[in-house]
């Protein structure tokens, strides 16, 4: 059986956020998995524009030790 899923809407578009701050860990960590990898937008439902901004923000955060480059996976 096929599930008919509701199409995800970009959260940054929903909240009308134009600038993603690389210092806001609380926002950025939502879009990163346990290992610290950036989650693809087909999973999060972000639009292309905001995914681009998000990735630069996360990468800037990594330089400043706000985000982790990688963390050990739980096994």
């Amino acid at each position: 059986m096929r599930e008919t899923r509701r199409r995800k809407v970009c959260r940054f578009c929903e909240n009308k956020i134009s600038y993603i701050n690389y210092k806001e860990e609380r926002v950025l960590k939502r879009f990163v998995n346990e290992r610290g990898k950036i989650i693809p937008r087909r999973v999060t439902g972000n639009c292309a524009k905001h995914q681009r901004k998000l990735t630069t923000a996360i990468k800037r955060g990594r330089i400043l030790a706000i985000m982790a480059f990688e963390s050990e996976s739980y096994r």
Partner: protein
Amino acid sequence: MKVYETTFIINPQMEDATIDNKVNVVSEIISNNSGKILHADHMGTRKLAYQIKGLTQGYYASFIFESNTDVLKILDRHLKLDETYLRHLTIVYEGDMLEKKQREKEQAQKEQAQKEAESENTDVKETDTKPVKTEEPEIKTEVKAETETKIDSEPVAEKPAAEEVKADTEVKKEVEPKSSTDNESLYNEEDEL
């Protein structure tokens, strides 16, 4: 001239005075080289996502400033040479926060200018009426009446302006929390992921 944002981490295992000094040195570098600091943010000690030189915490500070490209070289050199700066990052500032602040500033300036203009006008009128008083005693009463009405009208004219300003600030206050709540809604939707 572009607007830049530079953020850096300082080794927190020093005295507070020396940390402050390290932050001030950066701001001086910017301002001494024809740069203009628009916003300073001292975020304080914060946990690092990974260890740097065996440290788990770092003192964060950032400046948003407007400057030539010359400043960036000097700044970068300074931050690289001093080992107490653990990390630094300078980017072209793209946030909309700055625009809002500039708009607010401009609005405030306009309002002030209006107020000053109003007060000047009233002053001029008063000075005009004074010599008339001394010359012709008969008109005195009329002048008095005029001045009285003016005195009455002045506060009435000024009060609404003040109230407008208040109202504006209130609106701004109301607007700002809204954005934060929006952000919070962002944070709370974590479970879906």
